[in-house]
């Protein structure tokens, strides 16, 4: 079974979801990400969904889970590139994606992550 590639960029992990995932693929992404955050002690996770045309409640929950698990491992999660139609549908569905920061694109997302990570190390 194919797995979604996770890229390491400094102390952040970057994931681009480009395929229409079936449930098992989504679950394995969750596991893989958690494992990698722990392995590299990453401080940030950026998930780009600019190619995702459908985000239903299952995917929404997966994203919320990833954010929650990352937080337990002391990492921040940022979601980038949500398409307008997806945003409108999620609002209609009633999904608020708590605990997930969002940014318009990867560039902004990385800047946002650096802000969080930077703030922490400055303490």
């Amino acid at each position, binding site marked *: 079974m194919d797995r979604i590639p996770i890229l390491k960029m400094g102390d952040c992990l970057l994931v681009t979801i480009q395929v229409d995932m079936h449930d098992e693929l989504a679950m394995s992404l969750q596991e893989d990400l958690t494992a990698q955050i722990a392995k590299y002690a990453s401080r940030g996770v950026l998930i780009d969904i600019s190619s995702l045309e459908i985000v239903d409640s299952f995917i929404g929950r997966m994203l919320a889970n990833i954010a929650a698990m990352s937080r337990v491992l002391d990492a921040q999660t940022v*979601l*980038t590139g*949500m*398409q*307008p139609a997806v*945003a*409108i549908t*999620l*609002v*209609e569905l009633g999904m*608020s*994606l708590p605990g997930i*920061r*969002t*940014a*318009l*694109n990867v560039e*902004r*997302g990385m800047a946002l992550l650096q802000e969080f990570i930077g703030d922490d190390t400055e303490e």
Partner: protein
Amino acid sequence: MAAFPEIVRAHETAILSGWMSDMSASTRRKDLINDSDLQAQATELLKLFTEASQSSGDVQSDAFAATRSFLKEIAKTRMETGFSAAETSMFVLSMKQAVFNALRDALKSNPSELISEIWTAGTVIDRLAMLTVDTAVGFREQTIARQQEDMLELSTPVVKLWEGVLALPLIGTLDSARTQVVMESLLSAIVETNSQVAIIDITGVPTVDTLVAQHLIKTITAARLMGADCYLSGIRPAIAQTIVHLGIDLTDIQTKAKLSDAFSLALTRMGKSVVALKQAAASTPRVKEV
């Protein structure tokens, strides 16, 4: 079966010329269709009408399928060319007198049969005319709907106030359809211009009801989900009262009474502020990174 189809066929030429001359000047529209085209259409219609009537008196039956599609075609073309719906249907109706004349000549000696044939033929022609009007009006309605859509798009302009700041000044009453279009254009604009803040200004909106408020809240929530901030400005006291009365919860939403305040907040949010130039004669403030 009715006898009129045979009679009509036998008198085709006479009927056609009578029909042509019966089309009174006002509905003839020589400016929109020339004689030979008109003649061709009339000939074709007469042929189809006669053929179909031989097997049925019901214009919705299969026998009339070819006639129906022919009439739909010419109705559409005429509406596109500029005929009115009435002029279009008069084309069909004006064949009646010529047909009745032919029937009268053929059936003079048999008044009761004449009356029955006139009735049958007349009914069919009337129904064909109604079909034509239906198509013509349907075409008009489609055009109007399309124009309404265009107007809707034009009336929801998204304005770039500064690099990264968009404003959507809404003017006039908001209905469900318009608010949907507004929502979608704002969200696409945010992506296209890579903006961080969007301000929806409702100074020009006279009333806000629960439905409209819900739509605005959804738009703002969607924008935030996508990663942009979204403020609501231009809330007049009367609207503030209505919102409280209706029990609408705006606690999660950043609101400002004035658009200028919302813009100021947007700049601050992006880490920018407006400062005066440090020159004696300076009169225009410049925006400077903080």
